């Protein structure tokens, strides 16, 4: 944390739900009475491309973009995307990655291959990087779609925002009829 600002970088692949997750986090910060901004780029990235969302909150936030190497927390929804952005983590920052691989179609051309030893390479930058089996936890709760909320729960432990507000915002922003289930998923991630 620099100048009282918390910087969270959420990364993944188009279609994984990065934007909703970062929206929820930013909204929790707002209802806590903090200044909050988030930034990402829409457009071509949605066609299966790389998606990153910068969330910043604190007393007063100016730039919506996190400066290089100053992410206090990185949450990666996918392994290779975690590796792509791990260098943005600040010294002693928290790195959380879902144990999930999405192999892009470009590998079929033979020009590129999906990286090997992803966790080892991530831990070279972030020794305490946490690998989360979110898919297994989601299956345990009976719904594979809960992966993102579980990951938010895991991440929430690294961030000073109240559990009550998290649950309030998740209830409000989760798709209709899934509020209770998503709150359960959040708590499962938070206590995992």
């Amino acid at each position, binding site marked *: 944390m620099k100048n009282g600002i918390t910087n969270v970088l959420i990364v993944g692949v188009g279609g994984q739900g990065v934007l909703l997750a970062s929206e929820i986090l*930013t909204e929790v910060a707002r209802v806590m009475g903090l*200044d*909050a*901004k988030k930034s990402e780029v*829409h457009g071509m990235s949605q066609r299966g491309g790389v998606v990153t969302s910068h969330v910043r909150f604190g007393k007063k936030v100016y*730039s919506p973009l996190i*400066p290089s190497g*100053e992410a206090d927390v990185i949450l990666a929804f996918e392994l290779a995307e975690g590796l792509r952005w791990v260098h943005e983590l600040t010294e002693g920052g928290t790195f959380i990655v879902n144990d999930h691989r999405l192999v892009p179609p470009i590998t079929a051309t033979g020009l590129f291959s999906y990286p090997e030893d992803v966790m080892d390479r991530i831990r070279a930058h972030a020794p305490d990087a946490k690998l989360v089996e979110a898919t297994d936890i989601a299956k345990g709760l009976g719904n594979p779609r809960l992966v993102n909320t579980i990951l938010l729960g895991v991440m929430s432990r690294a961030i000073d925002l109240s559990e009550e507000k998290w649950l309030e915002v998740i209830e409000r922003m989760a798709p209709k009829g899934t509020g209770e289930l998503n709150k359960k998923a959040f708590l499962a991630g938070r206590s995992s």
Partner: protein
Amino acid sequence: MEMLLSGNEALARGVFEYGGEFASAYPGTPSTEILQTIARYFKDDVYAEWAINEKVALEVAVGASYGGARSVAVMKHVGVNVAADPLMSLTYTGVGAGLILVSADDPSLHSSQNEQDNRYYGKFASIPVLEPSDSQEAKDFVKAAFEISEQFDTPVLLRVTTRISHSKGIVSLGERETVEHGGFERNITKYVMVPAHAAKRHKIVIDRLEALKEYAEKTDLNRIEWNGTDVGIVTGSISYQHVKEAMPEASVLKLGMGYPLPMKKIATFAAGVKNLFVVEELEPFYEEQIRAAGIEVEGKKYFSNWLELNVDRVRDGFIEAGLLDASVKSPNASAEPEDVLPRPPVLCSGCPHRGIMVAMKKLKLYTTGDIGCYTLGALPPLSQIDTCLCMGASIGHAFGITKAGKTEGKVVSLIGDSTFLHSGITSLASAVYNKATTTNIIVDNRITAMTGGQDNPGTSRTLMGEETHAVDLKAICRAVGVEHIREVDPYDLDETITALREETAREAPSVVITNRPCMLFPKKIKDAPYTVVLEKCIACGLCFGVGCPSISASDEKNEKGKPKAEIDPLTCTGCTICAQVCNSNAIVPLEQ
């Protein structure tokens, strides 16, 4: 009440709160959500429509303004080029009720063919430019823009960038305020731009600009934030935010009104600091004007006009200038990013553009392309789109290359339905008139897809959700003189290849129209998936060549170690293109 809003949502909210009654736009990233937000939340108070192109969007908004409605025309930066014709004379006529032209620029070309700086349009047209620096200002500046427009009888350019449009911040909301205006009042010398009237109006524009310069000196849109006297920074738009974070000790002159500049205020500011800098994204728009006014200043020497700025780039510039210590940067800022495979955007699974790409490739045609999802066909493995310049250019390109007569092989043009309506019709009429023999493909997926699925005059729905007439593309082609018009099913490769072979052989202009809808909009389409029979797959790689995101290399290899294919049943839509290119009959419907 407060809400977290994107710049685009806040701008839409501003149009609602400050008495806007009329909004017209052509979709274009990063501007699209402005009109969508108006149509979704405020349509009881603000009329919103998709125009056929940006020129028309501005013209109808001008009409609404002449007719007494506070109006906005919204477009991406390159859209203003299309609307430049009305704009450059609109500045002479002035407005009726307040009129705002919103230009959403795209520094870093996140989704554009260039990164032009549209502040120059303000100078070019002698109209004021307002530049919000966050979501709150995106809303607030709509009020200022309407008021300036009405006070000075001028259109106002409200210029945002991708980073403003698509960042979210906290915005305080207010109630809707309305302003009373009467209807259109005949005023022939003001509104009829014939030479005699226009010459008089030009003088009014020149005087108006002088009055606006005085306004710029007094308005609180431009404010000095005094701090240390070592460094003074003139900045605006998103750069202001980066500057405040990177240079907390500096004094800042924040320009909310980017044109005309408050040169007296800038001179006062310059006199109060030792070193004056301009930090602005893209071109040296402020810098050159400030230097021309005889004030010593640095800018582009340290802050490049290439791509978006951010906190790092602002810090780097001041470190280079010797005014900031390099230790402010995180020790990790210089960490080399890991080399990770790219994820270029691709045509969706089942995209109807894929079949036509594969057919053109098979026939070894050159393809002049246009603006839309199909531009993704330029990327490997398809690599089938050979040009992309601007909306509607494909038809003219194919005609020009063919007419030049120096190219071996056939050239076809490829354009989408929305882009054809936007500015392809005139090109086709011109080509036919000039005795073209080219084949022009219209990939008619019945939606404006690239920007997220907007309706257009071919879809039979308006932005406000009403049923309406759908333009008949074939009738248009016939009317401009194309005799050979063929509809093809792009999921039938043989039919598509035959049609293209026959039409390109013809010594007459032709149009081939594909008839499958977009897979995503207005609703997702998914038929039963296909699968690869691994025993039959010989790992030839032909199916990889269609560039479908549902097809990937499996762990099974052939005797030479080449990977066999597999298909993801969750995303495969059953379009069958891969099955049609497979020579081994290895791709078959998945038994459910």
